[in-house]
């Protein structure tokens, strides 16, 4: 017989390294036509970081994502980066990118200000223009300013900056300190159907609400949540590296190491929690790892709701579920017989 259940898993997760310095540096160059190049030492791992970083540079310069070309991943030519780890790229490298773009923009403002007859701090960059704050009709095309900067004033608009999240050392005995600059929060809720004859779990539906600060690129955030949930499903129910008595792996291959296929994904509803972290670039934090964190908890809590058994070791295989259901029945029968 099949039983349905619902379960919640919620979590918090930090951005960046635990206390340790984990800086990133970036360089932004504005070309003579107002397009730009971003040079970053980060490495694209599939999450779309280069697109997001390009969007951050574009936002700071008031130009479009397409106007920014991103160069990355070469220790000879790109500045140092601690790497795409600990969900830090959008926040740490992103802050470095914003700061670098701001420096390049500063040069553009210094060139534009006298032409527009204002002070540099009265200017903003938006819509591919350098315009006066609150008086947008007085503006110059960013292309014109960039050209003038380089060829008339001899000041190519280029900026390099680095960022490292501020932390406070943790006391070795109490652990008290400020190990991270910021954290993100999320909840995933799962609906499962458990077959009490086979022990199989079918994850039917999940809703996920994730905080990432500002979502620089919502499409990419969704992709991370979907991918993270897939990994969470594998962790909850399928994946396990098995060793024999001699310490050799029994299943070091993809036919016997079971991981999620297209058939294993539930219907999903994703919400991005609206939030703004002033310490992040345009309010952004991060999302890469948190997405895989609460999934197993949500699923196993739903199993608990469905068939009343608590699986305390992962993965929750069909065998474990069946065994737990049987033990539960036996215990229940014992209770009845002692009660009667």
């Amino acid at each position, binding site marked *: 017989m099949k039983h349905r259940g619902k379960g919640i898993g919620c979590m918090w997760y930090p951005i960046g390294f635990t206390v340790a310095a984990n800086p990133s540096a970036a360089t932004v160059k504005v070309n003579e036509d107002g397009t730009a190049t971003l040079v970053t030492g980060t490495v694209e791992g*599939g999450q*779309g970081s280069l697109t997001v970083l390009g969007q951050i540079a574009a936002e700071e310069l008031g130009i479009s994502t397409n106007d920014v070309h991103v160069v990355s991943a070469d220790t000879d030519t790109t500045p140092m980066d601690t790497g795409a780890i600990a969900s830090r790229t959008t926040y740490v490298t992103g802050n470095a990118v914003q700061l670098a773009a701001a420096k390049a923009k500063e040069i553009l403002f210094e060139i534009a200000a006298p032409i527009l007859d204002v002070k540099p701090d009265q200017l903003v960059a938006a819509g591919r223009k350098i315009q006066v704050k609150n008086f947008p009709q007085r503006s110059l095309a960013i292309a014109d300013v960039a050209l003038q900067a380089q060829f008339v004033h001899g000041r190519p608009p280029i900026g390099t900056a680095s960022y490292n999240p501020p932390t406070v050392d943790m006391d070795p005995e109490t652990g008290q300190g400020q190990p991270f600059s910021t954290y993100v929060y999320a909840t995933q809720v799962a609906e499962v159907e458990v077959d009490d004859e086979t022990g199989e779990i079918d994850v039917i539906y999940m809703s996920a609400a994730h905080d990432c600060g500002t979502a620089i690129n919502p*499409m990419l955030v969704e*992709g991370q949540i979907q*991918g993270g949930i*897939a990994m969470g499903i594998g962790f909850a129910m399928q994946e396990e590296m098995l060793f024999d008595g001699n310490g050799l792996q029994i299943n070091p291959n*993809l036919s016997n190491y079971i991981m*999620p296929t297209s058939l294993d*994904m539930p219907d999903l509803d994703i919400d991005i929690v609206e939030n703004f972290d002033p310490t992040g670039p345009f309010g952004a934090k991060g999302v890469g790892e948190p997405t895989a964190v609460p999934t197993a908890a949500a699923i196993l809590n739903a199993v608990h709701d469905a068939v009343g058994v608590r699986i305390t070791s992962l993965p929750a295989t069909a065998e474990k579920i069946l065994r737990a259901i049987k033990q539960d029945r036996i215990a229940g029968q014992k209770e009845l017989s002692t009660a009667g």
Partner: protein
Amino acid sequence: MVDITITVNGEKRITSVPPETTLLKLLREKLNLTGAKLGCDAGDCGACTVLVDGVAVNACLMLAGQANQREVLTIEGLADSQKFHPLQKAFEELGSLQCGFCGPGIILSAKYLIDAHPNPSVEDIRKALSGNLCRCTGYTKIIEGVAAACRKIAGATDKAA
């Protein structure tokens, strides 16, 4: 050495390889078509999927000799000189791929499905892709991409009709 005559992406190729060479190695190393990927070399992950005489196969499991006199379509042959394939367009627009390593295999598995079933259900798509592993995306936007491509093709067919 075995002599192989094979039509790849519409072009006839004649070559000669050691008999144990897989179709995958032939494509990647002899013909420089690196779109099909080596993920496991055991037929488990689907990253090497190509179409042989229109049928999706794991190229790592097929010997080059078995592809003799056959027509092979790899990802490099999917778009023509004028247009992207609707699957490629939809995948780009919807952000269906992340690291992209599974992409060529998945796109060709999807093509195999939609060539035979132009209007697949979500369940049909899931089943057709079940032999292609993806670790990044959770498959969600991939399935959306296939469905979107089908709608585009259907729309274009309606227009043409």
